[in-house]
């Protein structure tokens, strides 16, 4: 009888040892994630001014459109507060800013989101004519993949260097910030503002040294 009991305990222990799935991993998925990335060769001392649109780009099931409402105004204002904090001055697009800032909201996607899928730079050159027409933003670094069909309500902030846009057709995305799933309806406005501040704090858009 004792032998049987021992066998049962042993088999139970082995089965538990074999069930090596990362159970606690799921618990880490429910928390806010912020990612910031900047270009290796970007020299942020060259940048002093930026322009940002009042509206933000919304991506939903492969469609992109612009939204301008009270919430987007608050988001844009919080981003401006942070950029001012790091010494950047807001100007209108016609004043030839050093940086253009675009904000995207991935409301829902059923597709794989490759870097740049969400950006809406076309809107910029449709809204403000030459000299931006025809340029091609690119990422001079590899982007971590944090947007998938499982994520909804992610906020993306991107800054492109347009100091040489008149002579160069390609302009680099020099800073990228992502707050994953912050706009999925489960977070407060305070958490939204705090996470925007956080994405700037973990890797500010300035030179490291």
């Amino acid at each position, binding site marked *: 009888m004792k032998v049987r009991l021992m066998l049962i305990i042993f088999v139970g222990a082995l089965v538990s040892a*074999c069930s090596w799935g990362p159970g606690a991993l799921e618990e*880490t998925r429910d928390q806010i994630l912020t990612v910031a990335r900047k*270009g290796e060769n970007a020299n942020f001392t060259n940048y002093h001014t930026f322009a940002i649109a009042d509206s933000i780009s919304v991506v939903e099931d492969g469609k992109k459109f612009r939204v301008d409402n009270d919430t987007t105004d608050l988001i844009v204002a919080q981003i401006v507060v942070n950029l001012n904090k790091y010494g950047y001055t807001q100007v209108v697009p016609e004043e030839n800013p050093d940086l253009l800032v675009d904000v995207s909201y991935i409301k829902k996607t059923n597709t794989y989101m490759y870097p740049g899928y969400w950006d809406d730079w076309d809107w910029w050159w449709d809204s403000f004519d030459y000299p931006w027409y025809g340029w091609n933003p690119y990422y001079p*670094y590899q982007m971590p993949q944090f947007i998938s069909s499982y*994520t909804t309500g992610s906020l993306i902030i991107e800054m492109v260097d347009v100091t040489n846009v008149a002579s160069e057709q390609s302009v680099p995305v020099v800073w990228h910030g992502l707050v994953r799933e912050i706009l999925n309806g489960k977070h407060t406005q305070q958490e939204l503002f705090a996470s925007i501040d956080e994405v700037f704090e973990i890797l500010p858009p300035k030179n490291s040294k």
Partner: protein
Amino acid sequence: MKRILLIMAICLSCAGVAGAQSYGNSMKQIYSLNWQVNVPVGSSRDFVSKTNFEGIDINWAYFVTDNLAVGLDIGYNNYHEKFSQRIYRPNENTAINAAQYRYTQTFPIKAQVKYFFTPNNFVKAYAGVGLGALSAGQHIVIQDFDAWDNNWGFLMSPEVGVLIPFGYDNNWGANISAGYNWSTNKSTLGNIKIDDRQSFYFNIGLYLALF
């Protein structure tokens, strides 16, 4: 009468010794399957510090003398731990602030030499040492993002244990052993420096002896 009893006792004990010497240890091979628990020690605790209960060990020993056995040992271990929100910097131009799930999967494989102190007793105690290699795969999982590295190292493992048969006539029973793994695996994943991997391990399992 006392003298006769004394002579008989001496004769019986001599016969017993002679029998034991001629019969010897009749076990030729031992196979064992064990559940293994590992307690990480040293710098590997900086990556995952929790005790690992998800381990398995398979062992084979072949007797080359009555007391000495050589064999092989392979295993699998899965160390894992959840961490609250913290900044992970894969390089100076990237920062990811999120909860982390870290795990390390290790595969030790080693040749072993075991010395059985009491191979003829009911409980067979042994001590041994294993030399081999350890493969360690380390992961930092942040939601859909998985940063990982894999490394190999030289492995050395002293071990002590006992075999306890389930009855006098049984050629199978319980194996209980404990040891220490030390390997030269190194890693800097997530800027967490691991100079070597060390752990105390405990095996509990079943063995089968072939005669």
